[in-house]
């Protein structure tokens, strides 16, 4: 079933997207040097700007945006913004009361700061933004590094003024610390020192950082110099932070650091990192990662964006020893388990390539899951073994495959064939390698045949179409065993046929390769396609969603989706069509999104990347 609810969140995301991009162009600049000033920061080397040295060593969390100026400009000056703003849906969205409220609030702030909000943002944190949480003083702190001390001071004063106007007078206190003016509004403390604005919720945290600023920056020293200065050691002295910096390399636009060793002292975190995951799907997705984190000193996140893509990477140190025996299925006993290389097919929607030893998971379920899940597995084992004609599902079936597994979904072409189903589903397939092709080939062929027979028996009881077995020998050592639904009188020539005509379950063999597919055409394509040579960038798991294929399949089912929207949202046909067209447009902005998980040089890395069409 093509269900619509999947698309609704997408639509919501899209609307959010529109709002973010929806800034009027900067107005005249009241302070003096407007957007032209941007270029001044552009040449600076990232990393030089790090304020990590201004946070105490006991900071358990630290995140920094190195060149906010570039990020702001990337978002606001992105070509996509213009395209979104030209959409009808966008024009409707900005007339909603919620949006008007938002605009009004923005105008108020701009009025008070006496500059457009984009410029205010650039002035306030154009040269850096750092946030952290310190366990010693138990406080959060943020350091905004602005354009220059003068404009920073001016803006600080205006913000305070704004707080006085809108807030309760009693909750505003002003004072100073070591000659630096500071203010407290509703328990949040502010101080401007030179070109930096410090915001914190704790006096002690604030004092530590201000001391550090005055002692180091005041003497015109770089914050990284003279690490043994009075006031204790900074985050730069934390060995795990050092290891993080070494692993992450030159800092990316945005990066975050988490001290797992300190964090792990909390019983809740420790339990979360060490207890069973409990859910089999979650275990398969992140089981090995949990083990790695439990032993790792730190974890980090980095964000990088340019005009064509946005990329989020999560990293943590990785040692094979940290993976317990029952989780060898995840990275392999030697830790070098990698997903297979899959052929590239036209109109692909989704591919997944992974290393997971499913047989191990099945047989070690007792160590991995609690009693409830094991009860479920015991029952599933009985049914699946029945389904596979008495072959033990774990030991005979799953164990016959190598742990390198691929999954592919592509759009199906129904152009000239009938019966053509009304709902057009993608074809999907799993790609395996057989451990013992000689014996397993016969065995699997037989199991497939008896499975088709079983489906026919069940199907005939429910009045469903019957499957017909067939086989296609293609070339040397290549064999495809197919099954296809036999059309009945009413199906012949039909372009509105039942859902089942999306399927022609098939298996294919070539050497060690084994494909099981929902359609015979995909089975053939996969078994015939040449496997690309390994390129050295193989990882444990990688998955890619292709927007073009997704858009095609949505188009194929446009009528169906409109009907679904009409019934589910109570919309008229016009409203339903408009919504689907908007969705198609939105999907059209994207190129592909991918996810990879793998380790290299002692670092485990998960990377999510989304590419937009330029």
């Amino acid at each position, binding site marked *: 079933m093509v269900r619509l609810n999947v698309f609704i969140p997408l639509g919501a995301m899209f609307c959010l997207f529109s709002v973010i991009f929806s800034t009027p162009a900067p107005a005249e600049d009241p302070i003096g040097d407007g957007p032209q000033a941007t270029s001044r920061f552009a040449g600076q080397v990232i990393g030089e700007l790090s304020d990590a040295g201004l946070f105490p060593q006991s900071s358990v969390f630290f995140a920094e945006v190195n060149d906010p100026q570039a990020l702001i400009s990337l978002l606001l000056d992105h070509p996509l913004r213009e395209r979104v703003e030209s959409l009808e849906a966008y024009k409707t969205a900005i007339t909603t009361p919620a949006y008007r409220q938002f605009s009004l609030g923005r105008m108020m702030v701009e009025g008070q700061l006496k500059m457009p909000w984009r410029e205010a943002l650039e002035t306030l944190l154009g040269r850096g933004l750092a946030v952290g949480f310190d366990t010693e003083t138990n406080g959060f702190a943020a350091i905004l590094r602005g354009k220059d001390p003068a404009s920073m001071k001016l803006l600080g004063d205006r913000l305070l003024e704004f707080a006085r106007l809108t807030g309760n007078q009693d909750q505003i206190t002003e004072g100073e610390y070591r000659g630096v003016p500071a203010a407290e509004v509703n328990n949040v403390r502010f101080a401007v020192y030179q070109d930096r604005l410090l915001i914190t919720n704790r006096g002690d945290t604030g004092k530590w950082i201000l001391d550090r600023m005055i002692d180091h920056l005041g003497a015109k020293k770089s914050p990284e110099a003279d690490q043994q200065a009075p006031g204790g050691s900074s985050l730069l002295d934390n060995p795990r932070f050092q290891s993080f910096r070494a692993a992450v390399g030159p800092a990316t636009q945005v990066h975050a650091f988490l001290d797992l060793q300190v964090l792990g002292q909390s019983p809740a975190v420790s339990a979360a990192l060490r207890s069973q995951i409990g859910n089999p799907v979650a275990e398969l997705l992140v089981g090995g990662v949990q083990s790695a984190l439990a032993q790792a000193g730190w974890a980090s996140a980095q964000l990088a964006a340019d005009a064509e893509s946005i990329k989020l990477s999560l990293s943590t140190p990785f040692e094979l020893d940290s993976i317990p025996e029952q989780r060898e299925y995840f990275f392999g006993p030697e830790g070098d388990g990698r997903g297979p290389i899959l052929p590239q097919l036209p109109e692909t929607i989704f591919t997944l390539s992974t290393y997971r030893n499913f047989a191990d998971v099945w047989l070690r379920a007792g160590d991995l899951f609690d009693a409830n899940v094991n009860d479920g597995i*015991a*029952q599933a084992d*009985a*049914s699946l*073994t*029945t389904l596979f004609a*008495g072959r033990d599902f774990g030991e005979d079936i799953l164990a016959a495959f190598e742990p390198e597994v691929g999954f592919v979904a592509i759009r199906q072409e129904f152009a000239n064939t009938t019966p053509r189903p009304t709902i057009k589903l993608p074809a999907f397939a799993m790609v395996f390698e057989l451990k013992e092709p000689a014996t397993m080939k016969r065995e699997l062929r037989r199991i497939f045949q008896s499975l088709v027979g079983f489906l026919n028996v069940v199907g005939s*009881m429910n009045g469903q179409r019957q499957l017909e077995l067939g086989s296609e020998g293609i070339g040397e050592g290549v064999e495809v065993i197919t099954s296809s639904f036999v059309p009945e009188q009413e199906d012949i020539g039909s372009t509105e046929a039942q859902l089942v005509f999306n399927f022609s379950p098939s298996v294919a063999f070539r050497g060690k390769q084994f494909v099981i597919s929902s359609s015979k055409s995909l089975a053939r394509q996969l078994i015939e396609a040449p496997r690309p040579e390994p390129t050295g960038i193989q990882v444990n798991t990688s998955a890619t969603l292709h927007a073009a294929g997704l858009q095609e399949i949505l188009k194929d089912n446009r009528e169906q989706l409109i009907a679904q929207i009409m019934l589910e949202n109570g919309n008229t046909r016009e409203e339903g069509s408009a919504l689907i067209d908007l969705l198609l447009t939105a999907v059209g902005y994207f190129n592909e999104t991918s996810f990879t998980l793998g380790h290299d040089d002692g670092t485990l890395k998960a990377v999510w990347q989304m590419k937009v069409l330029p």
Partner: protein
Amino acid sequence: MKSEFMPYHFSKQHGIKLPRRSFLGHASLSASVLTFGVTAPGVLCEAASLAKEDRILVVVEMAGGNDGLNTVIPHRDDLYRAARPKIAIDSSDVLAINDELGLHPAMRGMADLLENGQLSIVQGVGYENPNRSHFESMDIWHSCYRKDETRQDGWIGRYLESEGMASLTDPPALHLGKRQQPFALMSRGVRVPSIQSLEQFRLRVADSPDIRNAIRSLSNQSREDATDLLGFVQASSRNALEASERMESAGVKYKPSESYPETALGRQLETVAKLIASGLHTRVYYVRIDGFDTHANQPDAHAVLLRTVGDAVSTLVRDVNAQGDGDRLLVMCFSEFGRRVAENASDGTDHGAAGPVFLAGNGLRSGAVGKHPPLDDLQNGDLLHGVDFRQVYAAVLKDWLKCSIRPVLGADYEPVDVFAGS
């Protein structure tokens, strides 16, 4: 026509008697109970003195064909071990019923009930010419008729109909679960709701006590020139709102005496307990657990299933007793057939014939009832039935639900002797 029909608990026009249990279980909560304005009758302590309308039947369907031979096990019988070299349960593991028989080791819950004298095991239940198709055999159990006979309704449906329960103020029976309604509950005249959660018995209102009070008091207001029809609706509304309130308070006040197992069946039986505690007049609750079709790798899967049933049923019996309603409860667990005596090559068993039926509750003749089907006298490799399943229904109908057998079963079957008082 039914327009003149007044269901039994209409004491006078539009007046509704309150469920008796309100005064039994929660006498200490009398502040809220007394506002209903009826004084409590004497405590009912003996099953025999239970009014017929207070009796509750909970049916647990074990779908797929439960392996009776590995459930109630003749473990000392050499023929048993010989027929099942790989999956036989060892004498040292069974939970003893008597010298000859033992329960599967996973049925700790059932064994506890047995110890408390709350479990009756009817052995060798089946019917002539057993059918080995799940669907057909289940239809036979549900309807009491075979395929070539006219069968449009189920035995529970006919019971509800023969007792005139077409328009009661509470549903006469409830099916818990999302799946298709069991055929046993079908009838032409009485509709049985399926419920997925207790929410269906709670009035949803905006979070405002004002509106809740307003709705209640406006429904209660007397209407002077109301037609009979409107009067009926008003009386039913009042009853519905009271049911909702009882459900709210049951949600707050009902505390299970022990926690139910974290299984689908456990949660469903907990819902049953809550509904009973809320004073609903429902007579029959129907739940189903699937998965007994153990053709391969049976031992672990079967143990899980038997533990699930045993733990859930025994928790229900203990809990309902702790809530003070134990004497009102009878649980019946059945399966559409047993399995073949001989195991198959995949450590499993195939479709067979006769099997045991479990009855749980107070006032039962506890222990094994009837004879275990002999292993040296098989019919096509299957156990012969000693008791027709309709004899079990007959006992439930006559001795528990106190109604006549013939309109429901179509003939006078001899009830099996399972009730202590019968």
